[in-house]
């Protein structure tokens, strides 16, 4: 589904954000990508969305070399991938229904299909009753649910979630993770970039750890121990509860 072959990305300053990264994510997998700030996670997401081009190496999505995709074909390519962000990125002047239907309008879906699909998607994320609410009337968790509904309404094969729980409290964070797991169970490949070690530890999914642009660990779901996946230095930071540095919770 997703394959990176010796991918490097350097910005103009010359320091590589990603350095010779090779990895493969299969169809229907649920994968966590972990790493410190500046480790190259965001660059990875941007490369997968073809917002950036790799300096070296090849990226394949659905067996298609995405470097061969022309500028005009990028929108069609991106419809295979749903994206969710830490800050939700909802349109504040539109209600829940319009935020979700917006994603269908922009790819030219017919009005009839939009009217049929949007309520289904809102039911799936548990927001059917709040379809007329505006983002500011919703909790963080609810806003992220809207963002997930928007990302999934066009039925992408892959869902990229960039720190989806970063702005949420523990309860909301778990609700979102459960929702993502449910989405994965329905067949969507889910890639979650996160700092939340507790979630990674409890969910026992495959973890890819990136440090300074290099994949330092890639541990399968069947034997994942979060301590195996993440370096000692990262563990120290996270366990210290230093949220600025990426820590999320107090170890109990």
């Amino acid at each position, binding site marked *: 589904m997703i394959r990176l072959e010796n991918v490097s990305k350097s910005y103009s300053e010359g320091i590589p954000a990603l350095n010779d990264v090779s990895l493969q994510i299969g169809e229907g997998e649920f994968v966590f990508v972990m790493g410190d700030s500046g480790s190259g996670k965001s660059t990875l997401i941007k490369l997968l969305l073809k917002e950036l081009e790799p300096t070296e190496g090849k990226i394949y999505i659905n067996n298609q070399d995405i470097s061969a995709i022309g500028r005009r074909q990028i929108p*069609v*390519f*991106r*419809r295979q991938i749903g994206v969710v962000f830490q800050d939700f990125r909802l349109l504040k002047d539109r209600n829940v229904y319009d935020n979700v239907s917006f994603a269908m*309008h*922009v*790819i030219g879906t*017919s*009005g009839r299909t939009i009217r049929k699909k949007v309520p289904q998607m809102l039911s799936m994320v548990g927001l059917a009753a709040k379809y007329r609410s505006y983002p500011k009337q919703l909790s963080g968790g609810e806003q992220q649910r809207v963002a997930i509904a928007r990302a999934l309404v066009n039925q992408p094969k892959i869902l990229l979630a960039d720190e989806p729980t970063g702005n949420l409290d523990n309860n909301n964070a778990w609700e979102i993770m459960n929702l993502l797991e449910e989405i994965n169970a329905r067949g969507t490949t889910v890639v979650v970039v996160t700092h939340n070690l507790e979630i990674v530890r409890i969910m026992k999914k495959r973890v890819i750890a990136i440090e300074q642009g290099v994949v330092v660990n890639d541990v399968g779901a069947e034997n994942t121990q979060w301590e195996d996946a993440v370096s000692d230095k990262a563990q120290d930071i996270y366990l210290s509860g230093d949220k600025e540095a990426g820590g999320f919770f107090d170890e109990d």
Partner: protein
Amino acid sequence: MRISGFLYSLKQGMINIWRNKLFSSASIATMTACIFLFGIFFSIVANFQSMVRNVEEGVAITVFFEEDISEEQLQAIGKAIEMAPGVLDQRYISADEAWEEYKKIYYEGDEEAAETYGDDNPLETMSSYQVYLRDVSQQQDLVKYLEALAGVRQVRQSESLANMLMDFNRLIGYVSMGIITILFAVAIFLISNTVSVGIAVRKEEIAIMKLIGAADYFVKAPFYVEGIMIGLIGSILPMVILYSIYERLTDFVAEKFSFLENLMTFLSVDEVFQTLAPVAVILGIGIGFAGSGLTIRKHLKV
């Protein structure tokens, strides 16, 4: 683009105008002023051209013949004139008709003096063709053509009037073109600014659209709609204003310059607007499209 997509873009374009009321109003006002002035100049030029045409129809070239010309040659010249490009009408004036006309003009009230000629016709050699032109600018070419015809002794033309009319017409055309070009450049600049403010306001929305795979045209369409709507409103408004004041204006000018009443025959409001209205609307839409197109190309990399 599907109908739902088209309607969506249309709605978003309208929302852009509404959200961006201040800039949109400024652009519509400028556009209205530009098209209004364009309408005024257009009306002046159209009316002036109509007046020039009226005068031109009265400007004749007179063709005189060799003294010993035969009837066949005379007819051949008549045929050749008829075939010449730019000829609106021609009339043969015999020597007798010419003398009668002359007497009417110069011996009016003193007919006895004319009687001294008795049956003699002092204009015996002055039979001629009066040739009327469709377009006074073709006069020189026609004169050359007529002078080259066999049997033609002399071709008389009213060169100065023709040239004056042509020069004046050209001057009005150039001045109005210059002013209108400047005004339209200002209008394009303002619409372009308005659309760029709209793009800045919707920056986040555009970023999301791109990420979820919106086609290029879908991202751009609302901004084109915005520019085109500004252009459209800014062209319909001045047309309505101009339509309602045109007759009052022409009446006013006719009254002020009543000494020129023979020359000043204005076109009716419908005659002017059957060309002006579609031209103004197309111009408005075109300027709106160009203004938004410039900004979209500059600020909206999709």
